[in-house]
Structures are given as C-alpha cells and as structure tokens.
C-alpha cells in the first residue's frame, strides 16, 4: 500500500492530475475570496471555537461509535458503525454546512444558495440559515423533488426557498448547474454552499477538512475501544464527502479504504458508478472522473438513492483511485435494499439508502476477512427520508 507523502491538493488545487478551477471568469474572484476566508478561518481560534461549539451543542458531536453486534456475529469481522445518522438534521452534511455558513457570514454574504439531491444537504443548509438568520435558496432536481417530498417540506418549514430544476436529467447535476448560474448572477451577495467534495478549488479541500472530523473521532474512539486500527474503512460514494470525511484520518495508516458506488440497475445498465465506469473529464469546475458519452456529453446517472445519483465524483477520490490508495466497488439498487433491510432487522437501525450501499457491501468484504478483523463503516445518514422510496421499491402502499 503506497501512502501519500505530500499534502494534497497543491497550491493550484490539484490532486495529481485532478481538481483545479474550471469555472467562468465571473466566479474566479469569488473563489479567491473564499479560499482566503477559508485559510484565515483555519488559523482563527475564535472561528474554530464557535464552530466546535455548534458542532457539539447544536449538531450533536461527537457521534457514537456503535458495535453492530448481530451483524458482526453473522458476518465474521467486528463491525463498527460511525453514527452520523444521529446528528441534527439526520446526516453528516451538517458538519460542513455549519462551517461554510460561518465562513459566509464572515465574508459579509447573507444569502446562501445550495444544491441538493436527496435533500439532506438542503435540509442542513436551510437549518444553518435559519439559525444564523441568512436567506436560503435550495435548487433541487424536479425528479428529486418528487422522490424526496418529505425533505422538501422540511426545507420549506425551515424557511428555505426550494426551486425545482426542470432542465437536463432533473436531478443533482442539474441542480448544481442552476445553483452555479444563481451564484454567477448574485456573486456579490451570495455564497454557494456546496454539499460535497466536488466543484472548483478550494471546495474539495475545504469540505474535506470540515468533514474529516468523522474519521478523526472514529479513529480515536476505535483506539479507545479496541486499542487498534480497523482493517478497513467503508463508506458510500456519490460526490464523496462522507467517504473522504471518514478516509482522511486514516490516509497514512495501514487501513484499507473502500468506497462503495451506486451500480443502479447494474453496471451494464443505468448506474451512478463514476469511478468504476467513468472516464477523466471536467464537470462542475473540476477535473475528475465523469460519466460521459464519446462526445464528452455528460450522461444521466441513475441510483435508487437520490444522494448518490450523480455522474461526477470528487477529484480527490479520482486521485485516490489512480494512486491505488483506495478501492472502489459498487452495489446495485436491489443489493442496497438488501443492505437497508439487513441493518433494520439486524441492528434496529434504519439507514438512509446512501449508506445502505456501504452496508450491502459488508457480506462481500467479510468473505475476505476473519473475526480478528475490524471494519469501520460510516453510517452517514438515517432513513426517515427514504420511507416513500423504500415502500415503493418493496411494492407497499403507505
């Protein structure tokens, strides 16, 4: 296993050949301003105190590390779940949202735009904006508005203006396009609060830093409980923020890092397995892997999970794959539903469909491992939002 030696990204926002800033000129000054605000905040003890206080007393950090007793007995290795599902708003998204909202306030920007797929990032953003008294506009693909009507209602209750996006595939990628168009138009007053480790530099680095609390906590908790590191750290990958958040603390450790992508209907059908089946390209401001046709037009992704339904992936994941520091696998919609049921019935935990993909990979992974091995899984969100989707998939009328 080759551990990365130098700190990435470099000064130009590059992870090897990936990352960078492929954005219209209008946004370049805003990106420079954001990077400078982010660097200042990182060195500012009072910013860090305020963020830590919000994460602890508002969002609910640290989150527990739960030994999945029944699953461990059933599968072999000791399986630990990092319980990001227990955070306020129901997923890990709130970690980076609170930090970016504080940054925006510090830059004097009182208007926030965000994209959302499953609605988790939109809910977290609407929550932070309500808390800090900021205007909040959330762009959401019209197809996702339909699939995630409960989260749409939550965002509206929190005071957000939810705008359905009808262009393109009417999912997450189109919501990002529309959020960027809004940002270009209102850049003087507006911060684009990106929910994943995608987009132009410094977003992939910044969101990683704000999410890496997940892995830092889990690593310390595991050392406390078990006195050793896990054999493998596993997380689902759409854009890749919860996976990077888990992986980052283990980057220099002898720990397998495993990202689980959404294979949708199967890798030969419609899917969202960008790293498994995509090719290098430029989308949404960064060079990374993308799902594209031979002409370089971006393909529509498909996953039962709206949060993984994205034809791109964070540039650091592209680099981790190419450097062979992380492994990327995929599970289908129906396998993910199996993972969902496994955790519901085995542990009494209803996961979101996104981490249900990671859970679904556990039986396969366990075949290579024994009872002496430890597997750390990032349970990035809870499943309340997915009741409608799961019921529909199981043929149940609510």
């Amino acid at each position, binding site marked *: 296993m080759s551990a990365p030696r130098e700190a990435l990204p470099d000064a130009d926002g590059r992870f090897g050949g990936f990352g960078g800033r492929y954005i*219209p*000129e209008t946004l370049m000054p*805003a990106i420079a301003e954001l990077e400078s605000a982010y660097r200042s905040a990182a060195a500012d003890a009072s910013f860090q105190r305020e963020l830590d206080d919000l994460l602890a007393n508002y969002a609910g950090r640290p989150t527990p590390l739960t030994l999945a007793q029944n699953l461990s007995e059933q599968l072999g290795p000791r399986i630990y779940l990092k319980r990001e599902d227990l955070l306020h708003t129901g997923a890990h998204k709130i970690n980076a949202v609170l930090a970016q909202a504080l940054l925006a306030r510090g830059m004097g920007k009182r208007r926030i735009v965000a994209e959302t797929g499953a609605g988790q990032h939109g809910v977290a953003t609407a929550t932070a904006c309500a808390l800090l008294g900021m205007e909040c506009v959330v762009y959401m693909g019209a197809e996702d508005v339909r699939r995630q009507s409960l989260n749409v209602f939550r965002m509206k209750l929190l005071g957000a203006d939810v705008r359905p996006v009808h262009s393109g595939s009417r999912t997450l990628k189109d919501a990002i396009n529309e959020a960027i168009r809004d940002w270009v138009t209102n850049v003087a007053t507006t911060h684009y609060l990106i929910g994943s480790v995608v987009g132009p530099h410094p977003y992939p680095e910044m969101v990683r830093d704000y999410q890496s609390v997940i892995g830092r906590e889990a690593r310390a908790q595991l050392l406390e409980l078990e006195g050793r590191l896990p054999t493998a750290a596993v997380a689902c990958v759409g854009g890749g923020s919860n996976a990077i958040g888990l992986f980052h603390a283990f980057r220099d450790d002898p720990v397998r890092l495993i990202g689980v992508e959404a294979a949708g209907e199967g890798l030969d059908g419609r899917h969202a397995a960008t790293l498994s089946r995509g090719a290098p390209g430029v989308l949404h401001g960064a060079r990374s892997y993308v799902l594209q046709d031979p002409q370089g037009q971006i393909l529509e992704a498909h996953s039962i999970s709206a949060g993984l339904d994205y034809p791109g992936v964070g540039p650091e994941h592209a680099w981790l794959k190419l450097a062979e520091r992380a492994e990327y696998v995929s599970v289908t919609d129906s396998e993910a539903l199996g993972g969902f049921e496994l955790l519901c019935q085995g542990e009494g935990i209803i996961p979101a469909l996104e981490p249900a993909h990671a859970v679904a990979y556990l039986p396969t992974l366990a075949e290579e491992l024994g009872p002496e091995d430890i597997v750390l899984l990032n349970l990035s969100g809870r499943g309340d939002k997915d009741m409608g989707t799961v019921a529909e998939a199981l043929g149940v009328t609510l």
Partner: protein
Amino acid sequence: MSAGDPGDRLARAFARARAEGRPALLPFFPVCWPERDATQEIVRAAVEGGADAIEFGFPFSDPLADGVTNQRAYEEAIANGATLERLFAASADLRAQDVRVPFLIMGYFNPLLAYGAGRFVRDAAEAGIDGLIVVDLPPEEAAEFQALARAAGLHVVYLLAPTSTDERIARVARAASGFIYCVSVAGVTGLRAELPPALPELIGRVRARTDVPLVVGFGISAARHVREVGRIADGAAVGSAFVEVIREAPRERRAERVREFVRGIAGRDPAAPGAD
C-alpha cells in the same frame, strides 16, 4: 498567425469595422441547430446580413454559464446529433464556398477534452477555424491547451467580467490573443433590456491594460446596444437574441429573417428592418 498579422482574419475583421466607424458584429448560435444540417445556411445568411465573424456554439449537456435560451437550443442540438466532426465539416465546406469571415468555436472544455485536445486544435485549424472561446477554461487552467492551440495557429480568447480584479485583467491581457471577450454583466447569457451602467467602467479598466480588441457579450439584443458598445469597444457578440430569431423563423424564411436581423442590429443601415 497572430493578432496583427495581415493574414489574420480576425485582425482584418476588426480593422475593417474600425475603418467603417462601427463595432464588429459577432453573431452566436449552436451548430447542428435547429436541424442537424442548418449550420451552413445560417452562416451564409448572417454573413450576407453583415456579420463580421461567426461564433459557433458547440453544445454541452451542462452549460452552467448559459441562460435558458441557449440551454434549450443546446439540448436540441445534442439530440440532433451535434458533434465536433459535423462542426468541422460545416466549417470546411463554408471555407470551400469562399466564406471569409473569421470563425470561432465557443463552448465548454469537456467535449474538447473528450475529442482530444491535440486532435481538436489540429482539426479545427484545418477546417478553417480561427479562434476558440472556452468559457470554463480560465488562463490558470489553460497553459497546455493554449500552447497546443497557438502551435496550430488558433487564437485562444479569454473572458473578463465586471467582477474581474485589476490583477486578473492584467493576467488575461498578457495571455490575450485575437480579442478579449468582456462579459457585460455578472450573470449568464440571455436577453436583457438595457446594457449595465457599469459596463464603461469595466471596458475602461481593461482598455487601460491592453491594445487587444475588446468584444462585449451577454445581453446584447438590440441595435442601440450595439451602437452603445461601439462607443467604447471594438465588437459586439449577439447570442441569445440571435438564437431566438432563428428559433422563431419558419424554416423556409429562416435565411431571410437571419439576414434582416443581422443587418438591423449591425446598425450600418438604420432604415433596415430590425433596427430600433
């Protein structure tokens, strides 16, 4: 070939417009749209109407700097089967018919990458293309692509916006070739009633740092906009308004409507239909 070279079609176009005391007019429309084979007819009609250069929009599935007019046209062009091969074939045919105005390709980076950057600049130059405007390729990311393009004899045109700092203007001025595309307003492409009042300030800041021709685009949709631009800059790019004209025209009258629109907005003949 480089800016100022007498063999340079772009430099000649700006010089001619300047000599006639008006801004150069650069209509923009997506290739292979409204039908796959519509490109050549639209170019010929635009040139007959007085276009000084043509911007071929190459469609992209995720055009994040474009407003709804161009988004919709791009989606339709992709559905029509727009490819760079078809763009190059149309361009080469037009050159063979002795159409001499400069041709530019305006688009996003990913389709160019997918085609292969080296192959793209070579085939573009061979097809008679003069310059490239890649809206999501700022100079920071363009070093390798610019070197390939220059070696093939193509201009790489960069954009500046009202948000551009003086440092960025200086950087773009150093890298500039052909012209600088000044985005009139912080926003996406699309029709606007009036030019932004801050436009002269941007043009002034850019002009103070370069002698390269300056073209204003985004929101230019009427003859009076073109006249206003002519007082401060060297050219006007007309995109969404032109795209609307093409969309609205019945197919059998399209060439006539395109000629009329370009003639009117170019402002050479204030009595022409379309002039306001």
